[in-house]
């Protein structure tokens, strides 16, 4: 992941082609400094040798001028770059487009907002491009339907396999229903087989990552550290 963050053209563009002052990257899509977006930006800044004043949290885009009102903190910023590790379904990007970009575009109509992720499914990219106000949406690796575990084009069952696709799906769905009844094959039926060194996304099959001490007993291959909502 460190190398992917270093070799993308975004970091180089931020280094060379544009005035630093006009370019701000944000972990806004996670919106919380304890989540993985911050971790990602830290490595991105190190690998691309960028000054830290180019990075802000989502809440720092605005400043509050009273209860319920917010204004843009810095009108000289013309380009906002939002970075994240994965767009699995596009739900998060849509939510933050509503929560941040609506006001941002209203206050600074000429400001450009880009959403860049390391990995994105083709479905998520289409969803985000169609339903958000990001001017530019892109990823390093696009995961098409062949990366969806049990899809018709699945790459995981295109040869001699120990378990046929139908049997494998039945097993994963059976246990997935016990572990995460609402999304037995991953969030919004994503059916992904992807894990990062810092965490496993919920788009991946729950049988791979489920490890909730208050849930059914299960020993995952790659544990997912849940976001606890209090």
């Amino acid at each position, binding site marked *: 992941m460190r*190398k*992917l963050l270093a*070799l993308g*053209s975004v970091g*180089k563009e931020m280094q060379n082609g544009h005035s630093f002052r006009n370019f701000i990257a944000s972990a806004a899509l996670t919106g919380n400094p304890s989540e993985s977006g911050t971790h990602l930006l830290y490595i991105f800044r190190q690998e691309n040798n960028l000054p830290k004043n180019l990075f802000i949290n989502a809440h720092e885009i605005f400043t509050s001028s009273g209860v319920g009102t917010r204004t843009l903190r810095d009108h000289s910023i013309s380009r906002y770059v939002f970075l994240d590790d994965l767009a699995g379904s596009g739900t998060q990007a849509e939510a933050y487009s509503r929560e941040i970009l609506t006001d941002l575009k209203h206050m600074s109509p000429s400001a450009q907002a880009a959403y860049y992720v390391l990995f994105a499914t083709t479905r998520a990219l289409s969803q985000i491009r169609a339903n958000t106000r990001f001017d530019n949406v892109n990823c390093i*690796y696009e995961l098409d339907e*062949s990366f969806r575990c049990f899809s018709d084009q699945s*790459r995981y069952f295109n040869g001699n396999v120990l378990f046929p696709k139908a049997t494998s799906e039945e097993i994963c769905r059976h246990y997935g229903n016990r572990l995460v009844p609402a999304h037995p094959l991953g969030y919004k039926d994503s059916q992904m087989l992807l894990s990062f060194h810092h965490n496993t996304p919920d788009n991946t099959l729950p049988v791979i990552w489920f490890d909730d001490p208050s849930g059914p007993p299960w020993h995952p291959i790659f544990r997912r550290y849940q976001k606890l909502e209090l």
Partner: protein
Amino acid sequence: MIIGAGYDDALIAHTAESKENARKVQLLGLPSLRADMYQENVLRAQRASEQLGSTGGPVIDTFFAPANDPFVTANALSGIIKDENRSRPLTNLYLCPLATKVQTLGFGLYFLTELLGTGASIIFPFCKTYARETSRGI
């Protein structure tokens, strides 16, 4: 000798053998063209490890440049050579692009912008035919 190592391990081995006394480093395509291609590329390039001077594992110096961005590739090559020259000045340099067409373009850009008139040369094995499909994917 900087080898842009692609899927054709026989070609990598052949070119490496042609300059057997040169110290070799390999440049792998990362980000690769598709998510599974990086691992596949590493496995294929590993088959030529003996000719690259590494028999016990991936101990050969390995660098990375995108498989689909010639400008970042040229920039990466420039960085590699500057670092090498700092520690021990190079007398002779061979560039051998054997990976994607775009990465080959990056090698060419680097050569044209920084290496003209120096003791550097490009080794490029022209092929009469090539396989359109290189793998079934992982």
